[in-house]
């Protein structure tokens, strides 16, 4: 456990080392945040509210939604697929395998370290600035705690999904394509840009069968108090089942992949 905490710390420091990178990261968040706010402002128009699949949604609620999307997004973004495909292709993976660490846990710690750095130093300034000018709905304490739990769950789902896809690099070369396709699906079905309240029925039905909704939409709905306690338990159960399923799948794939692995000497 101690060594993985160290990995988290290292990832954190690694991010600190490149200040220009850091600066443009902040600029990026600022513009993304602003763009989404303006989109909803003009879509909701003069009345500042709109009918949706689950009652009327106000501009203040949509502002809150965009606000929380930014927070959740920080914990969903990672470069695991890219990182794994590089290591697998150039053989660095051999070094990871002979070290007395669990490769998967190492990647997970690395992700946590980077996410928390990005959250504290890149996003928080943007959000703090936002709070001066914007009015949002704050959650109740129980909702906030439930939100944290669901975000942790979605972080694990995202990690396992990336890791499982990343393992495909043992068989397939152009991994950036899979990464791009994954994000295409996430941006459409997760509620990252459009809450599922505004989806046509057919797409809501499709998204119920996919894990992506559990990543953004569900935690944000919990934050906003749109989910009853019973539903909340049900959604947590769904998250749990996805985690178990993906965990087993990644285990199986890892075993097959390692057997297949041949490293060129040198």
């Amino acid at each position, binding site marked *: 456990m101690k060594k993985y905490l160290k990995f988290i710390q290292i990832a954190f420091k690694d991010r600190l080392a*490149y200040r*220009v*990178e*850091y600066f*443009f*990261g902040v*600029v*990026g968040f600022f*513009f*993304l945040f*602003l*763009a989404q706010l*303006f*989109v909803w*402002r*003009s*879509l909701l128009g003069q009345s500042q509210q*709109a009918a949706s699949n689950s009652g009327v949604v106000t501009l203040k609620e949509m502002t809150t939604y965009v606000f929380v999307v930014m927070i959740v997004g920080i914990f969903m973004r990672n470069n695991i697929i890219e990182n794994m495909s590089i290591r697998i292709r150039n053989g660095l993976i051999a070094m990871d395998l002979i070290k007395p660490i669990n490769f998967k846990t190492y990647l997970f710690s690395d992700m946590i370290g980077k996410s928390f750095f990005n959250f504290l130093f890149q996003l928080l300034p943007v959000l703090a600035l936002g709070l001066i000018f914007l009015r949002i709905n704050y959650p109740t304490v129980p909702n906030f705690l439930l939100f944290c739990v669901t975000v942790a769950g979605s972080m694990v789902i995202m990690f396992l999904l990336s890791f499982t896809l990343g393992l495909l690099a043992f068989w397939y*070369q*152009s991994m950036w*394509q899979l990464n*791009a*396709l994954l*994000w*295409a*699906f996430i*941006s*459409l079905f997760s509620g990252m*840009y*459009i809450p599922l309240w*505004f*989806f*046509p029925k057919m*797409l809501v039905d499709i998204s119920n069968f996919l894990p992506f909704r559990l990543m953004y939409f569900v935690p944000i709905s919990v934050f906003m108090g749109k989910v009853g306690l019973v539903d909340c338990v049900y959604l947590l159960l769904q998250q749990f089942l996805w985690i178990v399923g993906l965990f087993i799948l990644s285990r199986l794939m890892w075993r097959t992949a390692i057997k297949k692995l041949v490293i060129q000497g040198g």
Partner: protein
Amino acid sequence: MRTIKLYLRFFAASLKNALEYRLGFLTEMFTTIVFYGTTGLTLWILLDRFKVIKGWTLYQALFLFNLNVIAYGIAAFVFYWSMVYMEQMIQRGEFDIVLIRPMNSLLYTIMGRNYPSFIGHLILGAILFVICGVHLAIHVTALKVVFLVLDIGGAVLIHSALFVMVGALTFWIVRSYSLFDVMTNTFDHLIDYPVSIYGKAIQGFLTFIIPMAFINFYPARFFLQRTGDNLFNPVLQYGTPAVGIVFFFLAYQLWKIGVNRYESTGS
């Protein structure tokens, strides 16, 4: 003339290279189509529900989006890969090779680093143009066709200039990944929607500083003959080709300063 010939040679080589891995080439094209297609789908979901965004209907918004898809596709085809690669070239001192070639440094940098799978953008663009054309019943005249070609040319130059600027700035900042992300993805995302939805400050920023509004917003206003959302001055809707040339010229100057500043790596 010689340069063009050389460029075509390099292009043919990179195309052959791509076609050598036919499956990879096809899946790559498929990926770019799906990736941009989902952004189009996002617009569709929003406007299916809300009908208009700042007075723009679904097909008008798709037309706007499409102008950017095409311009980005062409510019990225020429510049994307080489400008991403700049980071590595500078870190490893590989840029030395460029300097000893009897050729313009920018031209040599982009030679042979085309990205044929951006043809996917053109396919998606053609499909969307047909869909929008049918639904919007745009009256096609010779003048409009000329304008369309000029505007796309200008828009391609604006996108190209952004790529070159990132590449040039790499000479100073060395690690350029997040700059690349901001300049080509984040700003690109801003013009998925009509620029008129933003506040005056961002409109000004996207018109006069990073002139991305000229890629699609101002030309689209002209083609769709929109009388609403008149920003700054109506003459801007004819400005894309000129802005493209000026902006690309500035990017090229920045590139030249950057190249002069380059001092290989040690060892």
